[in-house]
């Protein structure tokens, strides 16, 4: 593994009772890279994401994060390596306030006072101060997405994995999300699983396209988005 490689997946295969969701997928990610994983429904990108985060254990193959073999580790063990994870459906503590949600993330690696400081910074950074005392269950979907991003950031991760961060956001919220992602990328490596091509155009540098459980193409964003095969895969045309 090259020194600068922080995430390496080797021949990941995932089978669900005969259905092959991932078929020998290999992927390398360099430090401070922003990588988008795209593909149509059922392409295997979310399964790949779940394997990376420890939510699923691959049938075969290995995953290395910062040189450590994380295959088969639990999500909390992966998170403890300094990995921040945002799931597809906002995974938040609905019965707690925004502040409490973010505090809990900050408290894992910090003492209470330091956690309080991190929470204040995070709330300010994501412009959540006004709703900091609101119970998360009362918030709109877009706000919950941002709160979950706050939870991820408060853990001060060096590797951030985001699963469909723009899903269900208004155009204003998408723009805000784009700027937050760029800001995170200044200090952390990012993997973003996304569906929305417009969003990908706004953030992507390198893109990996998944199709039928395999990596179809891995190139810079411009090349990938103009590739006729990728378009056909998305639009369902045949060559």
């Amino acid at each position, binding site marked *: 593994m090259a020194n600068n490689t922080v995430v390496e997946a080797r021949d990941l295969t995932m089978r669900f009772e005969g259905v092959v969701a991932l078929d020998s997928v290999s992927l390398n990610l360099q430090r401070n890279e922003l990588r988008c994983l795209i593909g149509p429904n059922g392409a295997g990108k979310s399964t790949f994401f779940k394997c990376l985060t420890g939510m699923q254990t691959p049938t075969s193959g290995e995953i290395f994060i910062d040189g450590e073999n994380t295959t088969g580790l639990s*999500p*909390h063990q992966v998170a403890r390596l300094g990995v921040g994870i945002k799931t597809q459906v906002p*995974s938040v503590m609905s*019965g707690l306030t925004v502040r409490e949600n973010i505090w809990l993330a900050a*408290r*894992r690696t910090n003492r209470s006072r330091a956690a309080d400081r991190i929470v204040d910074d995070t709330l300010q950074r994501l412009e959540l101060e006004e709703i900091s005392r609101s119970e998360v269950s009362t918030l709109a979907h877009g706000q919950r997405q941002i709160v979950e991003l706050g939870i991820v950031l408060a853990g001060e991760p060096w590797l951030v994995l985001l699963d469909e961060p723009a899903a269900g956001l208004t155009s204003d919220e998408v723009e805000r999300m784009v700027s937050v992602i760029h800001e995170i990328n200044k200090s952390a490596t990012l993997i973003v699983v996304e569906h929305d091509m417009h969003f990908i155009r706004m953030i992507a540098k390198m893109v990996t396209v998944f199709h039928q459980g395999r990596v179809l193409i891995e190139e810079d964003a411009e090349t990938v988005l103009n590739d006729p095969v990728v378009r056909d895969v998305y639009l369902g045309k045949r060559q």
Partner: protein
Amino acid sequence: MNLIREIILTAFVGILLMFLLPLGVDVFTLCLLSIYALLGLSLGFIWGFGGILCFGQAAFFGLGAYAYAISAINIGTPWGPFFISIIVPALVAAVFGAMLFYGRLNDVYLAVLTLVFTLILYKFMNVTAGEEYVIGTARLGGYNGIPGFETLSLPWDPSEYLYGESLYYFCLVLLLACYLGLRWVLRSPFGRIVVAVRENELRAELMGYDVRLIKTAVFAIGGGVAGLAGCLYANWAEIVTPNLFSLGQSAEIIIWVIVGGAGTLAGPILGAAGLGYLKYLLGQQSLIDNTLVMGAVLVLAVLLLPRGIFPTIADLFQKRTGSRSSNRKRSSSRKRRARRRPIREGGRNGE
């Protein structure tokens, strides 16, 4: 600051109740009610805050009682067994909980297994009448249970036993101490993480918390508190029998928590003491079957007060005091405006 105020207020209310209750109900019954309250509190903590629905909380209650009786017979003095009766159920809960939580069992399996666990203990204790079932010098006694063990006495005067009024005060002080202790736990970072796990297990895990370990710890704390209740029960009844592990006992604890209000600590205490007293009153008549009334109470509570008695009362009280204080605020701001107006008017007049 808030926590200290809360502790002082709760301690004050608790002590006040401790002295007022004996005026209406005899201390022998009150003693049992406070033991039930402690048992309800243990399930209220693990279910209401830890999100662990344990159908077999009676197992730890019974284990505490048996651990006390067996060790009291073997040791001969009461205070060592007192601590053993807390440690043994807590350890058993930790080991059993670790098997459940590290095995990643979901809620339904967890409920079933905890129920089976208490039923196994119930069945086993019932068949231990033979002479071969001995731990040290203590015979398990099967269906007849274990009588004749040393009960709690004053540490500085072993001839002065805790019974009647003194046992009642001892039980209530322990109930108050456990309540305040659990409140403190819930206010601590650990307690906040416990609630986070209840709210969203996956998120807590993605934050890096080991959910399995946290749940095991919560289960062990609940087991220890239930064990303490069992120890006090053994001292109150002066006999322990397999009925402590019975299905009826397990079901009753769940009913106490549901009726009192899961998600609070005071609710299960109120539910256990209230329903325990109702059961005591119903036991004095033969017109209606006791279990029928308890079932009806549960159905009515679930239909009419789905959140439980305590949260409903607390909400009503909060609304009333809230509206009163906002009325006060409104009227005081009206008064302030009224006071200011003449000054301004006076000022204008003076201009």
